[in-house]
Each structure stands twice: as C-alpha cells, then as structure tokens.
C-alpha cells in the first residue's frame, strides 16, 4: 500500500525522524494561512502518489502567504502528469506547505527488502534527488549498501559504513547514525516494503532533514496496522480495482479489449501473454484465487465486463481446489443476472471438468468452448475483433 508524502512524514515524526515544519491543505486559503504561520519562503507540494511531481509542475516556491495561496490555487485540482501517472494524469486534492530550506547537500537514503539475500537492505547515495535505479545504472559506485539482520537491528558499524561511504564527517556522523536508526525503526515497526528519503538534505546550518519521504507498506502485514490502513487514499486507485479488492479479487486494469478471468496469478499472467501472442491485447489481469465461491465468480465477472473496452471475455480455469462445476455455476448465474451479450470463450480443465462442461452446455447460453489455452486465446481474440 502506498501513502502520500505528508502522511509518510507524519509516520516518520512518530519515530523522531526530522522533517521540515509544514502542514497539509486542501484549499488555497488554508495553504496561505499555513504559509503565514511558517513565515518566510515556503514550498507548496502537490500530494499524489506518483513520483516526478516537481518536473510535472506540482512543486512550487512561494515567497509570501499571498503567493502561497495563489500557487496552491493553481496546483489544487490540476491533473498532474508525471512519468509515473498515466497520460491523463492524477488529480491533485491536497498540497503540503512546508518551510523553505537552505540546502548544503542532497543525499539519498532508502530501505527495501533484498529478495536475493532475504534481508532488508539500507541504501545510501551521495546522488540525492536522483532516482536510485538511475544511480544504480549510471553511477553504481555512488551507492553504499548494508544488509541488516532484524535480529540485531541497525548497529554502529552499519551507520559508520553508510556515513563514511557518503563522505560525512564531524557532527554529521552522529546525526546520520541517529537518522538511519530512526528510519530503520519506522521501517520494521510499520512493516514497510519501502522507506525512502530522497532527498535527505544537509541544511546550511548542518541539520539532517527528510525533505521528501516515500513509504510503501507490505499488504500482507496491514492486518496488524489498522492506523496505516486508515491512510489509504482510494482516489489514487482505479475504481474497478478498489471494487475488486472488496471481494478479495486480484484485478488490474490494462488497456486491451480481451477481458480475462483466471484462477491463480501465474496462469493469469500466462493467459495475458497468450492473448498477446494470439494477436490481441488483454484488458485486465484477474485472478479469482484458488477457492473462489460461485458468488465471487459472479462479482469477478461483473467487474470484468464493467470495463467499457472489453469486447470479448476469455475464461481460463485449471480447476484444482476451484472445481469446474462451481465455476460454471458462477459464470452462468453472472451471465443471466447481468444480461451479458459479449462473446464468452471458456476453457476449463481439471477437477470436475465434465460436470462443468455439461452445465455450460445445458445452460441454454451461447458460450464458446475451447480446447487448451491457445485455442481459447485465439477464439477470444477473433471474437473481440468481430464484435
């Protein structure tokens, strides 16, 4: 799960990670009032989940409360386009108004799970403000990494390795050790999948501050962090995906016109791939899971076809725990209830396949059946073209 910068800074503050003074505003007058309160130059920052906000015109300086209000009125409500949003952009509903800083140096600090090693890794780089992937490609020597065993947590040598690697000295060494330790605590305590401070700045007066902050959380661990769950912003997610998540369905909207419904994530990805190989484009990823009920199948079907681009549906099920008869029951019910007129290609295999196929045949509905994935994909792509 992703959260906004202002929310991440609130979470980090709980752990004593230093951040600039500031507050969030959802109206221009409030932004002006916050600027008044802070005094001096402020930064007005659009709050959307996507990165690259500055380049897209979502981050502006203001020298007075009046200017802050004016800048905020421009940013609020705008469709902000960055390399991480879609071409239509993402609407800005809030801005973060923060005190301006005199910056001596910009650094990078981030924590993620290193899958290969099986441990969290803390990464630091002297190339602050740049995306870490970009630094890894162009200047890998600028990145310092330390893996941390949760059993010991961050210890002195970890922070020394990071600090000396960044070329810090004097009073900054202690400040950096403290900063890293606090960020580590936040990462572990809140079950983050990513905690990234980019840039981490050294101010002209020698303080370390999280100028920007990004935190993502492990969805599997959200059950033990109700306070983090409340930070979810549904406006940042596709409405169909939100709807799907209510029924425990894994749905991701894509741009094609062949809707697909599959059990299991791997088979669902493979189904998208084979649609493409058959000359079509998948409209979505949809994994109904191993033990889907007839009701879940019905909901999945409803969500799938509410995407207006869908011209044909390909149902590809390899029944294991999910029995083919249960699938057939759900699909038949969905088609009858929703009055679907789209061509539907069904490929079923596995547990109770004969029963499932008999149910489909006897339903009186016009399903196209397929022998194998390839046949199914080709039939669905053809049907999508014809419709």
């Amino acid at each position, binding site marked *: 799960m992703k959260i906004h910068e202002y929310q991440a800074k609130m979470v980090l503050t709980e752990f004593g990670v230093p951040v600039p003074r500031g507050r969030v505003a959802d109206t221009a007058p409030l932004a002006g009032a916050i600027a008044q309160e802070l005094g001096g130059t402020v930064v007005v920052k659009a709050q959307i989940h996507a990165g690259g906000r500055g380049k897209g015109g979502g981050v502006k300086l203001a020298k007075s409360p009046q200017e802050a209000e004016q800048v905020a009125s421009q940013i609020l409500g705008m469709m902000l386009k960055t390399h*991480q949003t879609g071409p239509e952009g993402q609407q800005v509903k809030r801005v973060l108004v923060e005190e301006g800083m005199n910056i001596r140096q910009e650094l990078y600090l981030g924590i993620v*799970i290193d*899958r*290969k090693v*099986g*441990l*969290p890794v803390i990464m630091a780089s002297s190339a602050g403000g740049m*995306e*870490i*992937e970009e630094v*890894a490609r162009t200047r890998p020597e600028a990145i310092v990494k330390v893996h941390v*065993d*949760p*059993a010991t947590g961050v210890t002195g040598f970890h922070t020394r390795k990071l600090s000396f690697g960044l070329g810090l000295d004097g009073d900054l060494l202690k400040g950096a050790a403290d900063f890293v330790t606090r960020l580590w605590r936040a990462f*572990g305590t809140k*079950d983050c*999948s990513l905690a990234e401070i980019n840039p981490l700045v050294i101010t002209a007066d020698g303080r370390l501050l999280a100028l920007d902050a990004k935190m993502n959380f*492990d*969805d*599997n*661990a959200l*059950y*033990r962090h109700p306070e983090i769950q409340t930070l979810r912003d549904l406006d940042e997610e596709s409405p169909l995906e939100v709807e799907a998540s209510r029924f425990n369905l*894994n749905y*991701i909207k*894509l741009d094609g016109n062949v809707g697909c419904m*599959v*059990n*299991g*994530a*791997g*088979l*669902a*990805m*493979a*189904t*998208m*791939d*084979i649609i*493409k*190989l058959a000359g079509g484009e*998948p409209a979505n*990823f949809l*994994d109904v899971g*191993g*033990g889907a009920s007839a009701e879940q199948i019905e909901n999945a079907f409803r969500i799938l076809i509410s995407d207006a681009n869908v011209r044909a549906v390909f149902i590809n099920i*390899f*029944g*294991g*725990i999910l029995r083919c008869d249960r699938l057939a029951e759900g699909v038949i019910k969905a088609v009858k209830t929703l009055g679907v007129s789209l061509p539907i290609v069904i490929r079923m*295999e*596995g*547990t109770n*396949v*004969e029963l499932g*196929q008999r149910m489909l045949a006897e339903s009186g509905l016009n399903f196209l059946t397929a*022998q*194998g*994935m*390839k046949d199914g994909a080709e039939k669905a792509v053809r049907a999508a073209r014809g419709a």
Partner: protein
Amino acid sequence: MSILVDKSTRVVVQGLTGKEGTFHALACREYGTKVVAGVTPGKGGIVHEGIPVFDTVAAALAKEGANTSLILVPPAFAADAVLEAADAGIRVIVCITEGIPTLDMVNAARALQGKDTRLIGPNCPGIISPGKAKVGIMPGHIHKPGRVGVVSRSGTLTYEAVGQLTARAIGQSTCVGIGGDPIIGTTFVDALRLFQADPETEAILMIGEIGGTAEEDAAAFVRAHVGKPVVGFICGQTAPPGRRMGHAGAIISGGTGTAAEKMAAMRKAGITVVKSPAEMGQAVARLLPPARAAARMAARPVSSGPARKKGRGAAKSRRPVAGRKPRALARPRTRRAK
C-alpha cells in the same frame, strides 16, 4: 527416485482441524500419502478423520515419526508454524499459506539457516512425487509418474504444465511449487540441484515469472551445473511495470525483473525457452532423451565445475547435452479424456 518426498514421507499437517487443513489432509491421504498426524494447539488427544491430533509438532514427531510437515494455518500464525516444525526436527516443511508478512518470513528464513531443514514455499501449491506422495493442494489426478522434474513459482500454471505433459503421456518424477512470495525457502537453484542429482529425473521444466532475479540465478546454475535438458517458461511477458501481479513477488520494479531479461538469461544458459505457455509440454517432449539414455544420465553426478565442455556452448545448441537426439520418446499418443 524423486526429490524430497516419496514413499518414506510421513506427514504432519499443521492446522489439520481447520476447514482447509481437513480438506487437503484428506486429499493427500486419498492420494496415498501417509498422513500420520495433525497439530492444532489445544486439541491434542483427539482423533480427527482418523488422524491423531497433537498440541505440538514435537509430540507428533515423537509419537508418529512424522518427517514432513504440511502447513495450512492462517497467515498471522504461519511463520511461527514454520519455526515450530524446524525446531521439532522436521526435515521438509511445506508451507502453503498465502499472505504471510514479508518481515515474518525474513525472520523465519534467517532462523532456518544452518539447520538441516528444507522449507518449500510459502504461498505455494506444495510438492508431489506422482504415485508416491502428494504434500500439497494440487489436484493429484492430473499427474503421472515419470521422468520429468517440474519446478515453478506458480500454482495453477504448474497444473497447466503438468496437464500438458500428462496429455502427452510424459510422466513427472517430482513437481515442486516453490512459491510466489519475495522470500521463499527452496529456490529454483535448490530444486535444480536436487533434480540434477536425482537419477530418475531426465529433463527439467522450470516455470518462472516476473520479479526478482531468481530465474537469472537459476540460469547461471544451469549453465555451470546441470547436464540434463531444461525447458523454461516465464509468465508476465505482458505485465505492466510497477504493478504486483497477484503474487507478492511478481512485480517489475525499477526496470528489473522483466520477463525479457529472464528469458534472455535462460536462453544464454542453454535452456530451451518457450514464449507460449501452450508449448511447455511440447518442448519437453522434443528434448526428453530416449529411455535407453536413462541409465547413462543416472550415472552423471552433479559436477562441481561447468557441465559443458568448451565449444559446445558456442555451438548455439539449445540442447544442453551434446549428442542428444532431439527425437521425443513420447509423442502425443493419448489425448486426455475431456
């Protein structure tokens, strides 16, 4: 032979008395697996569906000689179940549970290091040696005893592959689902090492997916240590970057973990990579050596150095072992009954 599970496997099901636990324990038993015990803390002493239930794994091991554990407990308790099984001395732990917090698995995997315990999963369908033992949730009836080892990060896509093999009358030595999470116990490399050492396995099918670099590591291992023919498929060739495709581990992040990269690395290592998931069975059929080569293969130990001589890799042969005939032993003789 086969790998990890066989006739000597004695299973304790952690979470036996739950709905999932009961359903799958019975399916495993019906397949012929020796399901000797169940563990549900607080229910020790009862007999559930003819299976004795214990409060602890240690008791199940002491009383019933369990050597393998099948974990079907909810995500919040699964990492603890893994640790308990390892502590009791279980040798093979199969964790089916999906949705375990990543940091819980980091800790559990760390704790298993240096122990003589193998963890399979989590978030996996389990492991089956057809005709011998099924320790997992896969449909047993689609499998057939035979000579192909299957290793995969997926569940149903593995069934699809197995279905394609069985339809061609090609049996499997062992099929192992290693799981779709970012932190897993047994990796592709571990499974490949075991298959290479298993005299009954003559060809290997590996099914990967986007995210992480496990397939690249596997490719490097195949290049250096695997003499048997390997067929590969990677799903997620059309997956958009930055999105988690169902599995917690299936995500292209920062431009790495793409299907294209993995397929290229695997091809470079001499693995026959198919683009279409409909061609997995066919590709194995083409590469599977004739039965008479079996004895020769069986004698091959896992080499410590590169399996291939210089020059052979440069011959652009997709078949990792020179001189092997491409002709399939088992052409599609029977179509599976529909």
